[in-house]
């Protein structure tokens, strides 16, 4: 049994590597997602998004995890909710209405490199904010006008937006506590 698992893993690993080599050069999705690359957000018809030069950060993938199809192309799709044998890190942390939801409420069963709205419409990972906005509409509105979330750049021009998932892990979105920087000096302690 143990031996079988091992070989299975090995085969998968080899397959993954070969696909990776194939993709380099012909697939520019990975290129576009490289850190520092900026994607324009589509303001659509919303009048309050006057500034056209708004850019969003690339989706913060864990190294080597995208495109998903590199692995999933070789696996049989299974829509039944179950405990996964793979993606342990995600299943362990998953805390996003986990009682009622699981992977396929956001990820598409077939087109693994896309996200999927409740309507069935497929979405690129670059547009993940629209998926979040399905439930968190108020946050999306605030985010679009620059009130929710972090911004950098020019207050009057080119701005960089961060995708929801840059700050909130989509599988466990609650903002994690931080270590605070040092408190100011106690001046009376220094004098006494």
């Amino acid at each position, binding site marked *: 049994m143990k031996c079988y698992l091992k070989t299975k893993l090995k085969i998968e690993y080899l397959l993954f590597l070969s696909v990776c080599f194939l993709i380099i050069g012909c697939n520019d999705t990975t290129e576009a997602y490289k850190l520092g690359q900026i994607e324009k957000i589509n303001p659509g018809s919303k009048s309050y998004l006057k*500034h056209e030069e708004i850019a969003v950060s690339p989706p913060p993938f864990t190294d080597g995890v995208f495109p998903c199809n590199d692995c999933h192309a070789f696996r049989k799709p299974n829509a039944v909710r179950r405990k996964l044998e793979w993606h342990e890190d995600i299943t362990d942390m998953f805390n996003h209405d986990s009682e009622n939801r699981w992977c396929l409420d956001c990820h598409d069963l077939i087109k693994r490199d896309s996200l999927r709205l409740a309507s069935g419409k497929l979405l690129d990972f670059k547009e993940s904010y629209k998926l979040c906005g399905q439930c968190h509409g108020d946050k999306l509105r605030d985010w679009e006008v620059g009130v929710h979330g972090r911004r950098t750049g020019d207050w009057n021009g080119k701005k960089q937006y961060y995708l929801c998932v840059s700050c909130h892990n989509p599988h466990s979105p609650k903002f994690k506590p931080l270590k605070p920087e040092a408190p100011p000096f106690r001046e009376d302690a220094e004098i006494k």
Partner: protein
Amino acid sequence: MKKPVNYSGRRKFLKNLSIFAVGSLALSGCGPVTMKEFLQKNFRTLSKKEKDDIIKDLEKKYTAKYGKEFHVTDEPAAGGVEFGYALDLSRCVGCRRCVYACVKENNQSRDPQIHYIQVLQMEKEKGIDFAHSDVHYNPELVPEEGYFYVPVQCQQCRNPQCTEVCPVKATWQEPDGIVVVDYNWCIGCRYCMAACPYGARHFNWGEPTIPADEINPETHYLGNRPRMKGVVEKCTFCIKRVRNGKYPACVEVCPVGARKFGNLLDPDSEIRYILANKRVLVLKQELNTQPRFYYFFGV
């Protein structure tokens, strides 16, 4: 027995005090103050040529002192701009990233320590209550259960009390709303510090020290250029950055995106959206200082 000459000296000392102060200071060598610097006029009364001259001298001086190519500008306020700031109290986690980003951007003294931003930890049960707040909180992780955080810096009041009280007009409000200090004109009486209801003004009690490798060489004359001992300084919304279209350093660094900045005169700005769609509050509104710094609850 003392000689008469001695007495006469004493009397002169008392009668011509300012002259004595000047002389004794010069003698005690309390600082390499050049005659030119000593006689420099108030920034607002200087001609373009005088300003350029002074700035060139400053750049040379700072470059020599810190071993980095320094730039000092005196970029004036742009027309049609009035800066406003909003801070989302429901987001701030009290991590103090802003405090240190500010120190770095604005070349604040590390020792003695100057922080333009004071982050106050307040009890959720008590609401905004300065008397029970704490700036020295230091837990392993923030936010702490039962507390919220109120960072306070210069509120860039429309009706600033600090500029009113300055006896020598060394501090004033610029057309874009930023309250600035002419460090070369400030006499260091600290009346503005007594007047400010937000503790936003800070005094260089000793010679400011900044490690040369941490200095920010891109500076503004009325903002983050290195200061001297005995003058008051304050937050200028990062005048060097914002007059170049950039966000202030504290806005950019905030990991939770609690800090919002923009042009109050631009109806499409983030800040105007907040004023129109969120419920805002200002600190100590009863004092009628009319801050341009708003607090809101984004949730």
